[in-house]
């Protein structure tokens, strides 16, 4: 098991380093930051001065080495836009996004898993049909659209919730709900189909034949097996949260990484964009690592190897 985790950690590191490299190269060769940041009327001297100031006139290899050695010391450079330290800009946005995504993730699990279990156990009953109809609806409406609908209904029309900002807990309700409903729908659907599949396995019939009560079969025999594929799906869901944040945060003017990323990208603030991509990658790699480890913990076939 220890060896397994070590090998996965190594793999994660490789992914991280390659992403940093690829992103660095792509961003440097895809456009000129000086032209994007300065007005179109800027003189060639001004452009040259800008490049010299941010080290953009050196060779790409040199720039890369400087960037990596600085990054290893926690220095991700300064923003071209407002001259503040990238590290500060990014870290003040992290808690906001975590607050949003983690609560949304917990809520979507809390809604999706029991709904999926209920639908599977009461298969083809009205409960099942209701849950599945809700899930299909929740899944097929794009989440930013759902966000806009929520803003319109609860903030503009009913005026009971704030539409944007993050100052009070009531500001959280709409973005979290938007996020969670979409994900809960996906989780419920997958939970249902996985559990139905497991409930059809011969070992479940064998347990029934042994006179084990139904709730015990579901809890101790079926769910541990259904959890194995479920972990992979939850990993995808967690990975999708940041992508979702990029779409949803701007809708609610939530000052997190998502809206920060959108702003930095549109203004060509390379240093910020790069640091955020690195952060997103680290986040994805961590999730994948967690999924792999949990998968092995839950699945004796892998654990016992």
């Amino acid at each position, binding site marked *: 098991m220890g*060896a*397994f985790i070590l090998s996965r950690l190594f793999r994660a590191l490789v992914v991280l380093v390659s992403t940093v490299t690829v992103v660095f190269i792509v961003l440097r060769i895809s456009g000129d930051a000086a032209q994007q940041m300065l007005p179109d009327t800027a003189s060639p001297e001004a452009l040259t001065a800008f490049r010299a100031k941010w080290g953009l006139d050196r060779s790409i290899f040199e720039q890369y080495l400087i960037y990596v050695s600085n990054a290893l010391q926690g220095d991700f450079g300064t923003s071209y836009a407002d001259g503040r330290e990238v590290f500060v800009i990014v870290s003040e946005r992290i808690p906001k996004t975590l607050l949003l995504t983690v609560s949304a993730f917990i809520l979507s699990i809390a809604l999706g898993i029991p709904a999926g279990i209920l639908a599977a156990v009461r298969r083809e009953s009205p409960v099942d049909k209701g849950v599945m109809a809700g899930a299909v609806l929740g899944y097929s409406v794009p989440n930013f659209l759902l966000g806009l609908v929520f803003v319109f209904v609860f903030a503009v029309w009913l005026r009971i919730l704030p539409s944007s900002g993050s100052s009070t807990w009531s500001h959280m309700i709409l973005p979290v709900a938007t996020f969670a409903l979409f994900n809960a729908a996906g989780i419920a659907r997958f939970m249902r189909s996985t559990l139905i599949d497991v409930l059809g396995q011969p070992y479940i019939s064998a347990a029934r034949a042994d006179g084990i009560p139904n709730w015990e079969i579901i809890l101790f025999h079926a769910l541990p097996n259904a959890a194995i594929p479920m972990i992979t799906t939850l990993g995808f869901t967690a990975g999708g949260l940041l992508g979702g944040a990029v779409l949803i945060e701007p809708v609610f003017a939530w000052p997190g990484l998502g809206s920060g990323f959108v702003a930095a990208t549109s203004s060509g603030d390379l240093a910020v964009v790069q640091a955020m991509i690195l952060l997103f990658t680290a986040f994805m790699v961590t999730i994948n690592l967690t999924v792999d480890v949990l998968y092995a913990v839950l699945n004796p076939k892998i654990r016992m*190897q």
Partner: protein
Amino acid sequence: MSTPILRTKDLSKAFGHKTSLFSRSHSFFASRSIDLDLAARERLGIVGESGSGKSTLGRLLLGLTPPTSGEIWFEGINHKDRTARDWLQFRIQTSLVQQNPLSALNPQMTVGKQVSEALLVHRIANRADAYKRVGAMFERVGLSATMMDRYPHQMSGGQRQRVVIARALILNPKLVVFDEAVSALDVSVQAQVVALLRELWQELNLAYVFITHDLRIVRHLVDRIAVMYLGRVVETGDIRSVYHWPRHPYTRALLASVPTMNPAVRNIVPPIKGELDVTKALHGCPFRSRCPFAIERCSSETPHLRPVGGQQVSCHRAEEFPQSITSPVAELREEIV
């Protein structure tokens, strides 16, 4: 018998067996030093327990997995010397029928289309011609040509196996490997497929290798049999000769394990205990750990195939066993030790 269409010499296949991340992988042999000849129109049976290496041997013969060492010739051409063109020719002249007809067929394609595919891919027939040939082949394997438009799930297990056989035979192969082709079928359907294969063999210019763990079925389908244990052939010979007087204790145990239709035969102590363990590489005779007749010599000296009675047997004590396989093991043991 004429010159063999298929010949193997000292054919071996080893697999790595990983026990944990850090321990070195140690290999075991799924096939070990197999020398085999198959004449045109000959029918060879390969039997043994699961793990005996019989399926691996089948895949080796068809070039579906490369051997670790040794050689295979088909119609005089060594597999090693085949060009891409030769391989294509080889693929046209050979085919494989596997155990589960449902998973061997694509559920989203009509069975007629699946059978005609090979004709079209190899440009042996145009669409109209292929359609006619497949129809004829369907009739030939006991299906009606009207079934060509069906999907696999619309057929019974026996019908699907006939489709798989039709697909294997549509290119007029010279060699077919049947790997547990009837094992998943009901006895009644098994009997139908046995009858079909016997008829087809009469009519077609076909040699085949029939791989199975079923000693009752194989007897009615082959001329010669090879019994495998841990990758080695332990007994081989004419089917009648082997069944008449099996000489290897493993063959004897396999035959004695088959339940008879005689209710008076009950409470039989199983002829061999335990099961085959591929991870146990042994010096000497591979069967000795389970053999009730093993002696000192069996661990020191590996027996090789040698003629005993009408067949080839690799057992140091092959001459000592009586004809009857039903003599209780304990009794027999005292007699011959």
